[in-house]
């Protein structure tokens, strides 16, 4: 059976070029600990610094501003918890949006429980944060604004540049979760006015278990983990060398191929959107069509429940997801769709398709051939 993977926002396969770069560090040749002074260690250290430079290049940063973490989640946690810890004297208010990934949302909720004030901004029905709302939310106590660059469920691109400018104007640290934007749209920390920015390796065809936080020089932030002096004391623990090197290579390739690859994917994605609209009645595209990354299409199929739709698609070899990967399997409709004002039942019948390097024209044809029947079948069973 054909397998059509349309869940690239959940995770991506490691590219063969990336694996090639990693392999020496998974073998006897180059397994050293980069903190060691002997040759094995020095070689590892050199490779690590090269990778750091590649990641920095992807976002227009300096290598010294990149700190490797275990992934996007840790980077997000550090952005929030590290910033409030470093600014305790200044204030205890942070602003974020209601459509962030759980790595931000749940950390913000934790801080709220600890007595911090947290503003969760609403979004428009297109899934966009409004700069005006942030203006209104800022107080003298505000120490951090964190708004994601691209939403993981509906792919909407937030007005980060403007939000960043506003934060700068008020002397407030600005973080953006760029896990879903790097490799999909140009990301430049200076253009975006970002002080802190999170990236995850496995979303850009790098390995899982590695990511980074960009920390603009001079930004006040504390580490959240304690131990050895790695990552200039910002992130202790023996460095994940294969992960770091793979992440570096993935970043390098993502930067190089961004334009051509996204153009190709956009035309496939648009074909998918048009095809679904044409062939399936009572569907609705969730999220703004224009302010949206090229890989994302998110549809609400009325009177169809998401899990049974996903499972039926899987039986045809089509992999997609409802909401963020970590909450599918659970019974809650997506917090993002609800925040956009989509009724719970429609939110529950929503599916996210996210395209990637491996997808072809034939993949899309295959989906358009099979999906209508699947939806029709489930609707024929449905109690509504």
């Amino acid at each position: 059976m054909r397998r059509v993977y349309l869940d690239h926002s959940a995770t991506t396969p490691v590219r063969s070029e990336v694996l090639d770069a990693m392999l020496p560090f998974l073998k006897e040749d180059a397994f050293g600990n980069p903190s060691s002074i002997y040759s094995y260690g020095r070689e590892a250290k050199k490779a690590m610094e090269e990778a750091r430079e590649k990641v920095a290049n992807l976002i227009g940063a300096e290598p010294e501003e990149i700190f490797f973490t275990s992934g996007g989640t840790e980077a997000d946690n550090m952005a929030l918890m590290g910033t409030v810890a470093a600014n305790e004297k200044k204030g205890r208010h942070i602003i974020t949006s209601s459509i962030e990934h759980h790595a931000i949302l749940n950390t913000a909720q934790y801080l709220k429980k600890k007595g911090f004030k947290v503003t969760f901004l609403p979004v428009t029905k297109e899934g966009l944060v409004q700069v005006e709302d942030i203006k209104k939310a800022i107080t003298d106590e505000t120490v951090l604004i964190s708004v994601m660059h691209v939403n993981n469920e509906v792919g909407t691109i937030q007005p980060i540049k403007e939000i960043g400018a506003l934060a700068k104007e008020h002397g407030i640290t600005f973080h953006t979760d760029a896990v879903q934007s790097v490799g999909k749209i140009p990301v430049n920390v200076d253009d975006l006015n970002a002080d802190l920015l999170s990236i995850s390796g496995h979303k850009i065809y790098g390995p899982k278990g590695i990511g980074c936080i960009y920390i603009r020089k001079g930004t006040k932030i504390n580490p959240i983990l304690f131990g050895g002096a790695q990552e200039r004391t910002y992130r202790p623990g023996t460095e994940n060398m294969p992960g770091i090197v793979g992440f570096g290579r993935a970043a390098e390739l993502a930067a190089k191929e961004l334009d051509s690859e996204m153009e190709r994917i956009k035309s496939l994605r648009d074909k998918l959107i048009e095809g679904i609209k044409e062939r399936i009645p009572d569907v609705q595209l969730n999220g703004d069509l224009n302010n949206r990354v090229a890989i994302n299409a998110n549809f609400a199929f009325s009177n169809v429940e998401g899990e049974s739709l996903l499972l039926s698609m899987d039986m045809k070899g089509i992999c997609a997801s409802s909401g963020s990967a970590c909450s599918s399997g659970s019974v809650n409709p997506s917090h993002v769709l609800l925040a956009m004002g989509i009724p719970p039942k429609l939110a529950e019948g929503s599916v996210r398709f996210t395209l990637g390097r491996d997808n072809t024209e034939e993949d899309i044809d295959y989906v358009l051939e099979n999906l209508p029947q699947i939806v029709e079948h489930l609707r024929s069973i449905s109690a509504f």
Partner: protein
Amino acid sequence: MYSEKVMDHFTNPRNVGEMKDANGVGEIGSPVCGDTTRVYIKVKDNIIEDIKFKTYGCSAAIASSSMLTEMVKGKTLEEALEVTDEAVAEALDGLPPQKLHCSNMAASALHKAIEDYQNKNRKAS
């Protein structure tokens, strides 16, 4: 994740549909996830002669409905009322823990349909 039985009943659900001449109908919506099951029965001489269902819900909910209808078809009302959600889940070779509540829905909808039949019947007699 799901047993083969669940997958079978999910993909080829038995007794799906509406029933024009049902003499009992029961519907239940899960408070947990908004899933909804409607069960139609045709009872004659205290026996469930025919049964149909419609379910909006996850695969476990659909499979449970399908399995339940098979289990009670041809049974007396008393026998049918004894089929528990655990029995449905068991007949499906088990359900994942977080999906156990789905088998609940099917049995509850059936109970409501039987109640509906009995109410109507009482009035009629």
